């Protein structure tokens, strides 16, 4: 423990533990959140109308057959018991068995998750540098014509729905120009060219949405720092505006920027249903949507848990980056 600071109530913040203790604490909170979320997901999916056994066997099935199938899946057991079974399975990596496909949910997700992660990673790799550049440039030129133009563009990008962007992209690049395939599904990627052809449109569409968010939040975070006294001090030492923004303001804005990036990227994991659907991209989001249609609850629950865990991981990473970048938290 650090020496307790005397005096000010503001010093209370210093009573928090050391850096490793902080990480352990955040991870523990994340795990508790996951358990709570699992209970909520389970409760909600149980409330969904419809019945997997009925859905599989069809309307003509005899009540006996339905009852037998329900017993086979354990659907006749009380809810809390089924939840505990599922939770115990979750802890060992067993996500249950798909009702409709009959194979382990983990296998189904394992087939799709790398594709989803690939799409998210490619989009992040393209969008984060662009967004940060736009944000920093418009913060440096705040109030000027460049800033206003960038502001207008990013606002328009936020306002246009992604299905519209995707549809227009398909119309222009696939239908009219014929440069790209409208489907990225069947692609067998071996060369960089094939990779670009497969990913160009989904990535373009997703970038459209998240660049705007990240750029606007970066701009706000940097502007916030540019009004600080130490920025004026740097100017009065003869530092040029670019040096002031990059060497002085940006390091102080890393915390909020990391959080903005984490939020945007976590959206890529779970919120890309429309994009996956339009481009027939075989990701986790489509798997989940199909499962909802089929009342295949183990898949729905498994996917929801994956999304939630991914979100928590990203937010945790953003927190750790913010702490590692801040000497007040790093040196205690």
């Amino acid at each position, binding site marked *: 423990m650090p020496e*307790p*600071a*005397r*005096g*000010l*109530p503001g*010093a*209370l913040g210093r*009573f928090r533990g050391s850096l490793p203790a902080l990480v352990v604490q955040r991870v523990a909170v994340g795990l508790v959140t996951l358990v709570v979320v699992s209970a909520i997901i389970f409760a909600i999916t149980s409330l969904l109308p419809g019945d997997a056994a009925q859905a599989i066997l069809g309307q003509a099935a005899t009540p006996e057959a339905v009852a037998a199938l329900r017993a086979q899946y354990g659907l006749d057991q009380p809810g809390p018991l089924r939840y505990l079974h599922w939770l115990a399975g979750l802890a060992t990596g067993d996500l249950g068995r798909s009702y409709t496909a009959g194979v382990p949910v983990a296998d189904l997700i394992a087939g799709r998750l790398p594709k989803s992660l690939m799409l998210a990673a490619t989009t992040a790799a393209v969008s984060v540098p662009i967004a940060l550049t736009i944000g920093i440039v418009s913060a440096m030129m705040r109030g000027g014509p460049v800033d206003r133009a960038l502001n207008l563009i990013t606002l328009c990008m936020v306002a246009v729905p992604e299905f519209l962007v995707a549809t227009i992209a398909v119309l222009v690049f696939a239908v009219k120009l014929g440069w790209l395939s409208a489907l990225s599904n069947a692609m067998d990627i071996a060369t960089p060219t094939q990779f670009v052809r497969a990913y160009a449109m989904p990535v373009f569409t997703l970038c459209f949405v998240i660049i705007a968010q990240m750029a606007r939040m970066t701009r706000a975070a940097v502007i916030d720092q540019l009004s*600080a*006294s*130490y920025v*004026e*001090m*740097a*100017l*009065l*030492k*003869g*530092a*040029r505006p670019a*040096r002031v923004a990059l060497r*002085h303001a940006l*390091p*102080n804005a890393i915390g909020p920027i990391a959080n903005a990036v984490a939020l945007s990227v976590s959206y890529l994991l779970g919120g890309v249903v429309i994009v996956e659907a339009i481009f027939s991209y075989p990701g986790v989001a489509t798997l989940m949507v199909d499962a909802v249609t089929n009342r295949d609850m183990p898949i729905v629950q498994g996917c929801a848990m994956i999304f939630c865990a991914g979100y928590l991981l990203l937010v945790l990473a953003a927190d750790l980056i913010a702490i590692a*970048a*801040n*000497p*007040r938290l790093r*040196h205690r």
Partner: protein
Amino acid sequence: MDPLVRVEGLRITARKPTGEAAVLVDDVGFEIPKGEVLALIGESGSGKTTVALSLLGYARPGCRIESGRIVVDGIDVLSLDDEGRYGLRGRKVAYIAQSAAAAFNPMKPLMDQVIEAALIHGTATRAAAEAKAVALFADLALPDPGGIGRRYPHQVSGGQLQRLMAAMALITDPGLVVLDEPTTALDVTTQIEVLRAFRAVVRDRGATAVYVSHDLAVVAQMADRIVVLNGGRARESGTVDQVINHPRDEYTRRLVAAAAPQPRGEPRGAVETPLLEVRALVAGYGRLDRDGLPAARVLEDIDLTIARGAAVGVIGESGCGKTTLARVIAGLVPAARGDVRFDGQPLPTDLRHRSREQFRRIQIVFQNADTVLNPAHSIERILARPLAFYRGLRGEAARARIAQLLDLVKLPASVASRRPSELSGGQKQRVNLARALAADPDLILCDEVTSALDTVVGAAILDLLADLRRELGVSYLFISHDISTVRAVCDEVVVLYAGRKVDAGDRAAMGHPPFHPYADLLIASVPALRIGWLDALPRRLAASLPPVGEALDEGLCPFLPRCAVRRAGRCDTTPAPKQVLPGGREILCHVSLDELARIQSGGAA
């Protein structure tokens, strides 16, 4: 010989949100010969910082240097292009800001920031600049000159940061150094050391400097010449001696008068039933341990009595626990030990257990009226709230009472319909007082109520406090870091150091020795409005203090590490006894009061 700096007909304007231009500085001119220190003195809004920044060719966002001429070392500053200005700043003219804590980038090590100007302007290689910085650190009497550069701003004290900023300014050997209120944010005992360090480096290097301040006494120690600014215009200029001892201008005379506050109100002699009694109080912050004591103890064993109608002052440096004491009495911080009695009745230390009547009778007035008054509410609404809450006054009755309250704090009735942003700092502090008075309290806790105000405005608030006490018979617990303010308003003075009451007595007794060694240091550190005061002051170096053993026990005198009269074998082994003089004077010290009196009157130790 040409002066190093020549400013002529400087006019700086700002654009208000409404679009019209406001004149911040109008027709200001002065000259500074090489090697001299010029002081720009004035209150907030006088334009002194705006003038100082213009010497670097810099105007804050929204401000514009409209006309005038500034020549520094042969360079016409206002005709420079962007590149020329980058070359000027930090190279020819360097700046030392008021709040070093804000002016250092919290994310970067100190050394990187100190030598940044040298690297930007290419005056030295990194290694040479670092070596020069270390030498400057030593000149500025910073501890561990070789290693302090590796630390981050939050790891050093405010006084050290201020000296590090001086090193940052001097790293390129600039021709002109602009010091903008460089010691205003510091405790008075720290200020002395920083002033000494500044003056030594300025003198040794023969630097030319502009010293911006609101404090005439500080300026008298630092400057050769003074320009008095008021409302953006130069009211008077001359040598330090002329301005301080023979002021010609009416405004300068008021400034000089306010620098030495006169006692207000007659001390109350008769001992009445105490209104507030604090006994053996222990309080702090953080988690409670098994004995119910907080992790960070801020107050230790505090006794305090406030008689009805009396004013008791609490002074000490930042972090000594004076605000915590007010918060315990107000019920905002729970007491871990001891008790608080109000009008003979025990006062619950937890807010939730206090009655509305107890709330009403103790009111608190905070330092910063800007943040205390809701900017979205009119003054009438701000005052109506406590009237309705405590007194059940509404409608016409409430309006009549608000008019009375405004009259009481000497504000025009028309203020009622305005919002806080339309009032000046002094007016806001009066509204803040009226808000407390609306509850008809018996005790008002005043927490640094004049610290954020200019000297002249603060003096008017002190007058008002004295008037209110005479008219309403209200009592004050008056918290301040400024002993001359406390002596001006209070009947009794309590000195806190590191959470302990080290010295206490009435106003008359606190005017002469014996003092607790810390109180002595505190009083000696208040700059006097006298040229040469700083030079005459004996230096207290840590190395020259009497040697003592390593203090391990918790209950020992907290001032031991800094004490000039400490005694080995006593101070470092046994807790200090409380010595009581007739008349209620209390001093927590091992050294006998006769001996303290002898040493502090000028005798040898």
